[in-house]
């Protein structure tokens, strides 16, 4: 039954993709893809809930085979949960035209490839799916921005970084296959050099795809370039597939890893979480800001994974299972609220024609449904109770709190730093989304005109965001069933504290339970009480005093103004750049223009010098390229002779 549902879902996605190729049936094709995705999602969560496994198990042999188990089911479920509303949204978001027909068809292929990676049960299928998963978004971006130089440059950066980093994935998977360890944990000796090499290679390769710092540079460039529903799929699902691969390799196939690797993972997670949110605060473009928040949330997920690895290496299996579940719960939650936010951004772009924060405003009044859904997503990503972001961040925090209890001073220090990073990240995320909500949803309207007023988008687009907002609420109020099932995914007998006995809330080891539904009820009661207390009184707006000037739009809050206090505090680290031009005439000030940016330190200090040196080196190498065919043949002869000489003298072989 589950298998039939999964196959039907995949078939519907494929059929939807074919329909998108025909003029006049693009919408139908996208809706069919959405229905298929929903089927895939239901089948995935069904597998997770029942603990059933479909198809054969993993093999290290290069024999293509596919199957589904609980972990694959979790990610297939997430895929369905995100893709179904995103595709319904796309059915009205994508404007008619040849390019968007192609985008619709490519989306189907992208979904099938994502499902293939999750269902792959051998190294060959896994690596094939992995490479296709990397290439397809690049094609979508190029099709959507045909002839755009900026898009080409972005795609070049994306492909370069993900392919260079992707070497790590190949090394990890092929070494695992060579050792016969795919699907056979315990084959590789714990603490061996091979185990360490595979673990580091996986963290680099899969971490690049996930967007962890400092391998993240492609993400804030590529995600905003894609059409909004594809951005939702990339941020909501694609980078989570990298998390899936990391869990498979680090938690399942490599057995118990040494403590140093767990601490390294914690450090990478902390850097990503803090770095992502810090740079997000200073962004002026909504989708780029959201993309940087993906780095932050991947950091939180990796923090949970790091806690799991350290706890497992210390023999605290039950707590390790809890940490793994926290990490996976945040993976699902981030997929949902990030997809919601990207779709919301897409709706705002359609309605206003811009995503510049300083040109948006008052959208909660003009687009009440989309605005309200976006507000839910913003609260969820900021980690506010009772939404899903709070539930998983709280569980991650609990997992980190247990690190000092099971290990020595080193573990305690690592745990303390990770806790501080997570707490700071949560605070900064709240600051960032206070800015976003304040600038975009509240305040005066700053876009549109009398002829073209900003209005609510089409009902399917509103419905898609509403469904995801509802999912944020449900996963926040009732995280227990999912969390319990995720705890059972640990590939070791955990005796888990929050296993199948989990209730509706979160069962937290050592600190009792967190009744999330109760918290929600209290919050609702408090809000209702405040509303009742207010009675019929309403806010009394008064004109702002601006030293006698007329209060115009130019005096409104800007993103730069909102984040300035933090920028001043972090000036030494961030090195912000600004340019002020003053134009005066006859001693009277006419115009002041201000341009400010916060360059990414890793871009400026690591990648830019690296690229410069590489180009210089390429210049030297280029001298070998004479343009003469004879010279190239001579090179071939020389290489062959040198290799033969090496064999003859015993250097090789």
């Amino acid at each position, binding site marked *: 039954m589950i298998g039939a549902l999964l196959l039907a879902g995949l078939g519907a996605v494929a059929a939807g993709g074919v329909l998108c190729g025909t003029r006049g049936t693009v919408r139908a094709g996208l809706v069919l893809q959405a229905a298929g995705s929903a089927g895939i999602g239901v089948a995935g969560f069904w597998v997770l809930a029942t603990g059933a496994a479909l198809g054969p198990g993993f093999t290290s042999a290069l024999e293509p085979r596919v199957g589904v188990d609980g972990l694959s089911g979790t990610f297939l479920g997430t895929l369905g949960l995100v893709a179904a509303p995103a595709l319904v949204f796309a059915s009205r978001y994508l404007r008619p035209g040849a390019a968007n027909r192609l985008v619709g068809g490519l989306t189907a292929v992208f979904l099938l490839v994502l499902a293939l990676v999750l269902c792959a049960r051998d190294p060959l299928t896994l690596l094939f799916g992995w490479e296709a998963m990397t290439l397809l978004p690049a094609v979508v971006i190029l099709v959507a921005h045909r002839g755009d130089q900026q898009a080409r440059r972005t795609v070049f950066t994306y492909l370069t970084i993900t392919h260079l980093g992707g070497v790590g994935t190949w090394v990890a998977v092929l070494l695992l296959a060579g050792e016969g360890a795919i699907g056979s944990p315990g084959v590789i000796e714990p603490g061996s050099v091979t185990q360490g090499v595979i673990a580091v290679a996986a963290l680099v390769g899969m971490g690049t795809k996930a967007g962890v710092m400092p391998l993240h540079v492609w993400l804030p460039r590529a995600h905003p370039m894609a059409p909004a529903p594809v951005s939702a799929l990339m941020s909501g699902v694609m980078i989570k597939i990298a998390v899936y691969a990391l869990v498979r390799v680090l938690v399942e196939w490599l057995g118990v890893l040494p403590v140093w690797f767990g601490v390294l993972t914690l450090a990478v997670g902390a850097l990503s979480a803090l770095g992502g949110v810090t740079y997000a605060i200073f962004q002026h473009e909504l989708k780029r800001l959201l993309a940087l928040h993906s780095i932050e949330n991947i950091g939180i997920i990796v923090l949970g994974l790091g806690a799991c690895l350290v706890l497992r290496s210390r023999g605290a299996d039950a707590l390790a299972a809890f940490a793994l579940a926290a990490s996976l719960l945040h993976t699902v939650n981030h997929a949902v609220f990030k997809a919601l936010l990207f779709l919301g951004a897409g709706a705002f772009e359609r309605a206003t024609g811009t995503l510049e924060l300083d040109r948006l405003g008052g959208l909660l009044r003009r687009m009440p449904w989309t605005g309200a859904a976006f507000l839910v997503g913003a609260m969820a990503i900021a980690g506010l109770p009772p939404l899903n972001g709070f539930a998983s961040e709280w569980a991650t925090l609990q997992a980190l709190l247990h690190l000092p209890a099971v290990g020595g001073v080193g573990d305690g220090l690592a745990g303390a730093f990770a806790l501080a990073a997570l707490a700071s990240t949560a605070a900064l995320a709240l600051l960032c989304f206070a800015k976003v909500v304040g600038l975009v949803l509240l305040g005066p309207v700053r876009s549109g005109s009398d002829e073209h007023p900003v209005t609510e988008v089409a009902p399917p687009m509103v419905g898609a965001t509403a469904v995801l907002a509802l999912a944020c609420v449900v996963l926040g109020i009732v995280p227990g069933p999912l969390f319990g099932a995720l705890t059972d995914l640990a590939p070791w007998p955990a005796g888990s504290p929050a296993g199948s006995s989990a209730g509706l809330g979160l069962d937290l080891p050592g600190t009792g339970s967190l009744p999330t539904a109760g918290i929600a009820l209290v919050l609702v009661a408090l809000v209702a009480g405040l509303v009742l207390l207010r009675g019929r009184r309403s806010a009394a707006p008064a004109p702002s005093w601006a030293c006698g000037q007329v209060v115009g739009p130019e005096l409104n809050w800007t993103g730069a103004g909102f984040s300035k206090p933090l920028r001043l505090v972090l000036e030494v680290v961030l090195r912000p750049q600004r340019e002020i031009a003053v134009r005066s005439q006859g001693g009277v000030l006419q115009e002041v223009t201000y341009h400010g940016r916060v360059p990414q330190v890793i871009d400026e200090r690591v990648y830019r010098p690296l690229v410069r040196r590489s180009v210089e080196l390429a210049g030297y190498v280029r001298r070998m*390229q*004479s*343009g*003469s*065919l*004879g*010279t190239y*043949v*001579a090179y*071939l*002869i020389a290489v062959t*002779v040198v290799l*033969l*000489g090496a*064999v*003859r003298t015993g250097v090789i072989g």
Partner: protein
Amino acid sequence: MNAGLVWVLVGLGFAVVTLQRRSLAVGLVTVQALVLAAVAFADARGPHDLLAAVALVVRGLGLAAFFLLVIARTRDPRLVRAIVPPLRRVALAIALALMLGWLIPSIGLVSRDAERGVLTLVACGLVLAATSRATVFQVLGVVLVENGLALAALELPGTSWLIEVGVAVDLTLVAVVAGVFHERIFTEFGAGDTDALRSLRD
């Protein structure tokens, strides 16, 4: 294979290296292929060996016809001189053949003469391709190398047909692509001279 025949093939190879006229070089390379085909027919012990011989004849004559057609369509106004003078090319080919002989003591063939002949033909082909400017000569260098491989294949009874058919397909592809490029170069620059391509380098 008879040692004398091997050295006839090698002699033809060296002769191609010294030539400057394209049609003459095509003729000698074709003669080489036909000698190989004749040996293949003479030694044939079954349908597979016959297939190998037929493949040699077909590709020898087919390539000759193709090259002559290309040459007829692209008459060079003047001779395209090689980068290195003929005698020095021969010296280079001998040096490379000796070096290969030292580097590869054995390639597993029954006849020692055939092994030396194979390596010498490969060396002649590589030197011809590396030191020529005329596109046709560069392709003929590849054909010489492949003739060397064909000679090796004839010394491996039972599997030679696979190699000969493979070589024939390879060479047809190489020749067609090279022919198209040659015509294009000729149209653009007025001569089948690969040195003219240097001007395209940015």
